[in-house]
C-alpha cells in the first residue's frame, strides 16, 4: 500500500480508537479536541488556495456556512422524514450524517465554483476583496431565508459530530491536499503561485488550477462547516462573518503559506491559545492583529515555516553523533 494511504488509514483507525474511549475523556477536553480538528480542516484547506496556489481568499467562512446550513438542513429538517419517528438506529444516523457532510461539502464546492470562475480572473488585493464580498453576500442571503431561521439561524441540530468524524475528515483533508500538491498535476498549483506569467508561457492553464484549488478548498470548508454545526448544535449567519475568515487566514499565515505541517501546528496553537488565555479573552483579537503585523515585519514567511523533514533528519543526526 502506498505510504500516504497507509497513513490515512492509520489516522482514521486512531480517530476511531480515541472515539471509542471518548466516554472516559473529560467533556471539556473533548470539546477542545474537536475544535482543534475542525480548525485544522479549515486551515489546511484554505492553505491550498492561499498558500500553494497563491490566491488570497478572504471568503472561507462563507463556504463554511454553505456546508453548515446544507448539512444541518438535511439532518434537522429532512432527517426525521428519512429516519422515521423513532430517530433511526446509530448506523442509520451515521450514514445520514455522512451523506449530510458530503452533500454540504459538495454544496460549498458548487458555491466555490460559482464564486471562483468570475473572481479568479482578479489578482491580489482585488481578489481578496471580491472573495470577502461574496462571503458577505452569502451571509446576507442566509439572513433572508426564513426557512433556515433567518438572522436567528438554526437551533437544535442533532449532536452527531464525534472525534471520529472530525479527525477522519481532518486526515482526509491533509491527505488530499498533500497528495494533490505532490502529484504531477499538482505541481501546477505551485507553479501558478511562483510565477503566473511563466506558467502560462509553458502551457499551464493557471485559471483552471486556481479554480480547482478554490473548489477543493471550498469542499473541505463545507465539510468543516457541517462538522461545526453538528458540534455547536446551533448556527447563525453572523457566526460565519468576516472575522471567522480572518481567523482561518491568520492560521495559514502563521503556519507559513504553502506549508501543511506548519499550518496544522498553527491551527492547533491558535485554537488552544484562547482556551489557555480565557481570562484574557478581550485581548485575543488584539494579540492576533499584533501577531500579524509583527510577523509580516519580522518573519514574513510564517512562524512555523521550516523544512520539517530536514529538521527531523538534523535532530536525528545530532542524536546519533552524540556520545
Amino acid at each position: 500500500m502506498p505510504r500516504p494511504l497507509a497513513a490515512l488509514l492509520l489516522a482514521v483507525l486512531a480517530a476511531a480508537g480515541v472515539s471509542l474511549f471518548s466516554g472516559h475523556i473529560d467533556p471539556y477536553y473533548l470539546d477542545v479536541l474537536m475544535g482543534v480538528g475542525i480548525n485544522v480542516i479549515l486551515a489546511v484547506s484554505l492553505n491550498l488556495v492561499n498558500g500553494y496556489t497563491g490566491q488570497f481568499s478572504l471568503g472561507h467562512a462563507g463556504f463554511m456556512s454553505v456546508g453548515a446550513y446544507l448539512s444541518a438542513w438535511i439532518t434537522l429538517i429532512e432527517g426525521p422524514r428519512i429516519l422515521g419517528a423513532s430517530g433511526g438506529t446509530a448506523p442509520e444516523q451515521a450514514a445520514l450524517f455522512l451523506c449530510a457532510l458530503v452533500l454540504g461539502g459538495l454544496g460549498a464546492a458548487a458555491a466555490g465554483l460559482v464564486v471562483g470562475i468570475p473572481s479568479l480572473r482578479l489578482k491580489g488585493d482585488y481578489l481578496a476583496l471580491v472573495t470577502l464580498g461574496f462571503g458577505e453576500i452569502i451571509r446576507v442571503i442566509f439572513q433572508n431565508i426564513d426557512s433556515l431561521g433567518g438572522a436567528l439561524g438554526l437551533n437544535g441540530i442533532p449532536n452527531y459530530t464525534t472525534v471520529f468524524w472530525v479527525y477522519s475528515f481532518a486526515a482526509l483533508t491533509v491527505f488530499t491536499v498533500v497528495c494533490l500538491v505532490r502529484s504531477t498535476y499538482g505541481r501546477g498549483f505551485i507553479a501558478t503561485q511562483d510565477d503566473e506569467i511563466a506558467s502560462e508561457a509553458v502551457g499551464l492553464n493557471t485559471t483552471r488550477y486556481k479554480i480547482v484549488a478554490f473548489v477543493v478548498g471550498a469542499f473541505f470548508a463545507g465539510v468543516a462547516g457541517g462538522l461545526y454545526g453538528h458540534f455547536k448544535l446551533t448556527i447563525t449567519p453572523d457566526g460565519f462573518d468576516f472575522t471567522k475568515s480572518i481567523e482561518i487566514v491568520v492560521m495559514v499565515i502563521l503556519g507559513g503559506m504553502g506549508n501543511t505541517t506548519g499550518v496544522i501546528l498553527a491551527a492547533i496553537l491558535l485554537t488552544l491559545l484562547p482556551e489557555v488565555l480565557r481570562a484574557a479573552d478581550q485581548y485575543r483579537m488584539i494579540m492576533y492583529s499584533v501577531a500579524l503585523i509583527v510577523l509580516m515585519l519580522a518573519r514574513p514567511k510564517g512562524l512555523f515555516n521550516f523544512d520539517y523533514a530536514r529538521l527531523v533528519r538534523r535532530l536525528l543526526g545530532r542524536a546519533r553523533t552524540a556520545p
Partner: protein
Amino acid sequence: MTEFLQQLLNGISLGAIYALIALGYTMVYGVLRFINFAHSDVFMVGAFIGYYAGQHLPHGTIGGGLAAMAAAMVGCAILGIAIERFVYRPLRSSSTLNVLITAIGMSLFLEYTGQLVFGATPRAYPALFPSTIVSVHGLIISMNQVVVIVVAAILMVALQFAVFRTKIGTAMRAVALNPAAARLVGINIDVVISFTFGLGSALAAAGGVLYAINYPSIDPLMGVVPGLKAFIAAVLGGIGNIPGAALGALILGLVETFVDGSHWSTYKDAIAFAILIGILLFRPAGLLGRFTAEKV
C-alpha cells in the same frame, strides 16, 4: 415625487460621506498601489475623537460642530501618518500580499484596541450641529444633511485645489505616475507619502464625524461596513482617480438609499458587493479609470 426627492437628498448625503472616505483609499492606492484596510478604522477613530472633543464644546452650534470636526481631522491625520511611518514604511519593498496582510492586521488592531479603550457598547452621539429641520413642500431637510453636503463639497473642492494647484499636490501626482522617476527629479517620496496619508486620514475623520451625526450611535466596529462601501465606491469610480471616487460614492449612496426604500431593503448590504463584483468583471479600471495593459 416628494418621496423621490427625499430619497435623492438622503442618497446624496450618504454618498457625500462615502466620498470623503473613498478619497483616502483612492489617494493611498494612487501613490502606493495597495488597499489601506485600516482606513475604515481611522474613520471610526475620527468619529470617537469628535465624540470626546464634542463633550468640551458647546452643543448644537455650527462653530462647536466644526471645531469638533477639526479636532478629529487633526488627530486622525497624525494617526494616519504614524501608521504609515511605523507599519507600512518598513514593508514598502515587500510583496503586495504581505502589505495586504499587514493592513488587515492594522485594521483589526485599531478595532479591538478601540473596543478595549472606548468600550464595545454603542454610544449615542451628541448633537454637535443645530438640529433644525426645514420642511419645503413636504420635503424634510435636516440641518445635519445640509452640513454633510456642504462640508463634503467644500473639502472636495479644497482637495482638488491641493492636488492640482499646489507644489506638494504636483509631487503627489508625480509619485502616483512613476515613483522612480519622481525620485530622480528630486521629490522626497517619504514626505509625499506621509502627506497623502495625513490628507486621506483627515478626510476620513471628517467623514466619521458627519456619519456619526447622521446615524447617531458609534462603536469601535462602526467603520467596517462604511469603509468597505467607500472602497467599493473608489473601485467603481476608478481607483487612483480622485473625481472618480467622488462620482462612485455618489452613485453608491444613491443606489443604496433607493434599495433601502424599496421592498428589497434587507439586501441593502449585499447590493454594494454585487456592484463591486460587476464592475471588476466588466470594467476593472472603473468608470473614469483608464485601462492599462500589464507589462511582462
